[in-house]
């Protein structure tokens, strides 16, 4: 069974640019979570989608947004990039709502110069 896949694995952007990160959940999983893992800050909850709808949002500015498609894949968009957006962005999927059992991808490493 294929795990959660994320793309791209690495990317470099400059301040003010926009970026789109992509995530494909495990087949059959309807929930997708996004986390930001900046250096020394642990995993910060960004967004949670289930069945195509945004279920919850972390304490991030509106320039962080996303969506979930009918096939349950998801995108995370970050506009007007700032230096502190440099981080590993992790996507996770879950089969059952609210169980706490998440399956993580390997992440997309974003560097903002």
């Amino acid at each position, binding site marked *: 069974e294929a795990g959660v896949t994320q793309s791209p694995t690495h990317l470099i952007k400059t301040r003010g640019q926009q970026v789109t990160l992509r995530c494909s959940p495990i087949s059959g999983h309807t929930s997708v979570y996004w986390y930001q893992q900046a250096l020394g800050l642990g995993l910060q909850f960004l967004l949670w989608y289930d069945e195509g709808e945004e279920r919850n949002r972390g304490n991030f500015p509106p320039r962080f947004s996303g969506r979930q498609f009918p096939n349950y894949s998801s995108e995370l968009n970050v506009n007007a990039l700032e230096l502190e957006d440099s981080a590993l962005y992790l996507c996770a999927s879950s089969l059952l709502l609210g169980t*706490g*059992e998440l399956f993580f991808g390997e992440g997309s490493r974003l560097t903002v110069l």
Partner: protein
Amino acid sequence: AQRVTQPEKLLSVFKGAPVELKCNYSYSGSPELFWYVQYSRQRLQLLLRHISRESIKGFTADLNKGETSFHLKKPFAQEEDSAMYYCARIVDNQGGKLIFGQGTELSVKP
């Protein structure tokens, strides 16, 4: 705000020694707590959950409501236990939102 706190960034022990990774949570009536682990060059993965009361790879974690803690323990550490460990909880009344502590790096020396 509901939180998970892991006070130690790094814990270093020798092989065969007991290990305890600390996790404290902000007050909640019935918290659902988890430990996740990330081995070198592997994905973050679920290690155990308190509701299962299971032992995985020799690790156990007991929920102590009085101390609002969920420490992860293993009586005899092995080198292959070296990894990043994250404590996590489901946030009350938010349908399944999972938040994580800052993580503790466990280093088991030979």
